[in-house]
Structures are given as structure tokens and as C-alpha cells.
């Protein structure tokens, strides 16, 4: 499985739809302080099912909706992750060349998950990724400022990563 594209609309500092076509290999996200780089990382964590507001650096789900002074205020926030499917997924998804996972949040506070444009539950997202090694809390996602902290964590907290391996 690999990411073909990440699309963000109305999430944090992105009022316009942006699309990031990630190639295989290494992609570098660059730009000035405060321009929105870590917001892209938050979008990735969010679409993979992240539940913790603290990990998303907000106090309430409402802070995930674009809130700048700019005129256009989109009615909802949406992040779509377009994945190339090369196996490892459950039976019903095997034949599809591409899988699209999406998450939406409306100003009303309602939120929904979608797989290939059909609404589903968070459980279905977890089930989809079960044997692929994808996990928003896993060792594969390191937040800004976290790298030095890994060693400062307690042995019990570090054990969590080993359990993923087992």
C-alpha cells in the first residue's frame, strides 16, 4: 500500500482545496514558520482516525475547521487519502486498484468517515488497515519536537511500540 495523493479542504489553515501527489520514495514538505506544514501532518493523522484532540494540537473539534479572517469560510473540513492498493487489505477490497479513505467534519459538529465515497464507521477504517501496518499512533509518525522525547518517555510508554511489532 502506498499514498498516491492527499487532498485537504477546509481543514485548519486550508480554505482552498489543495492536493499533494506523493511519489514513491522521499517527499519533503518545506516552507516558512507558520505556513501550514505541521497542519498537513495533522490532516494525515486525522484521516487515519486519530481521536485525540491534544495530538491534533487543538482544544475542540471546532478548531479543526478553517477559522481565518479570510472571506470564504467553507461549510465543512474534509481530508481525502488516495491509496494505491497492493494487497494486505481485507477480502472485499482486494480487487480495487485504488482505495480512497476520507473524513469530514461539519460546522454542526457532526463528523463522518468514508471509504470509496461510502460512509462507514471508524471500526471499518481500523479493519481496512489491520494487516497493512498503518497506525496513526505507531512508530511511523513522529510529531514536531517529539524525536528527543522518545528517550525521555517512561519504559512503560516505550513498550507500546514493541507491542506493535509483536
Amino acid at each position, binding site marked *: 500500500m502506498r499514498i498516491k495523493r492527499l487532498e485537504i479542504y477546509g481543514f485548519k489553515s486550508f480554505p482552498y482545496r489543495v492536493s499533494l501527489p506523493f511519489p514513491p*520514495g522521499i517527499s519533503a514538505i518545506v516552507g516558512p514558520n507558520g505556513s501550514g506544514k505541521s497542519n498537513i501532518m495533522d490532516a494525515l493523522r486525522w484521516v487515519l482516525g486519530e481521536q485525540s484532540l491534544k495530538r491534533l494540537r487543538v482544544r475542540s473539534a471546532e478548531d479543526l475547521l478553517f477559522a481565518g479572517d479570510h472571506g470564504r469560510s467553507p461549510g465543512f473540513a474534509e481530508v481525502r487519502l488516495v491509496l494505491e492498493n497492493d494487497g494486505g487489505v481485507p477480502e472485499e477490497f482486494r480487487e480495487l486498484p485504488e482505495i480512497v479513505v476520507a473524513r469530514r467534519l461539519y460546522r454542526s459538529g457532526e463528523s463522518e468517515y468514508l471509504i470509496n465515497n461510502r460512509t462507514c464507521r471508524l471500526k471499518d477504517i481500523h479493519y481496512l488497515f489491520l494487516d497493512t501496518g498503518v497506525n496513526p499512533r505507531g512508530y511511523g509518525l513522529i510529531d514536531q519536537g517529539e524525536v528527543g522525547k522518545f528517550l525521555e518517555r517512561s519504559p512503560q510508554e516505550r513498550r507500546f511500540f514493541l507491542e506493535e511489532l509483536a
Partner: protein
Amino acid sequence: SRRKIREALELANQKLSEVFPLLFEGGRAELYFTDSDDPLQAGLDLKVKLPGKPVRHLSMLSGGEKALCALAVLFAFYLVKPGPFCILDEVDAPLDEANTLRFNELLKRLKEHSQVILVTHNPRVMEIADALFGVTMEEKGVSKVVSVKLT
């Protein structure tokens, strides 16, 4: 189950002994269980030996050394069970010039197994990327993205 966790530790240590010397010339590191003999209860700790230096506990390491150790452990886990993608937000910030080049070698090996997406301010790291995504805020408060394919 206990057997699986013990095996995972075994495998992680094997990979760590391959990766660690890439980042620290002549250094050694080992993950081990602490707090309890039962792998289902025990915590995970790290012992590090750097040539010529006393590292009695991890807080004696410098800022840059701590970052490199954490990256070595992360990478060892990756080699045991590669995830499809690896996402790093400014993990190279504390590194000096020489260690940045070692970090780049690590990234090149990582990309053999997984897709790597990273945020960086360091031009040395940008050099090895296959694609660059520039994030700007020309209009105050509004983020836009410009992508540049390199290879």
C-alpha cells in the same frame, strides 16, 4: 503472547545492531526489558555505548545524540515490520552537518521499504528528496501548496 513479544525484542535488537553503527561510528545499543521479568508487564529501556564516552543513563546524552538514538530505534522497528509509510516532522532540527548526512543515508535505506514524507528546514535534507512540496501563506492565514517533482 509472551513468546511473540520476546521474539519482537530479539528481532528489533538484531536490526538495531545493524543500524546503530550507521549513525554512531563504533557505537552499540540494545533494547531490554525492565521493571519485571514478565514480557507482558515489563517496560522497554535502551542501553547505549558510545566510543570513549560514559553513558550511564540516557539523560547524559546531548540533544543531537538523543535524536539520533531515537531515530535508530525507530528505524530498527521499521526494518522488523515495515509500515507502508513513515511521516517525520522536523526530526532533523537538532542535528549538525555530519549527522545530517548520516540521517540522509538512513532515509535512503528507509525508502527501500516505505514511502517517506518529512517536514524539514534543512537544505541538505531537501537535496535527497524525490519531490518537494512548498507550503506558503501569500495571503495571510491561507495556506497553499506548490509541488515540484525533482527526479
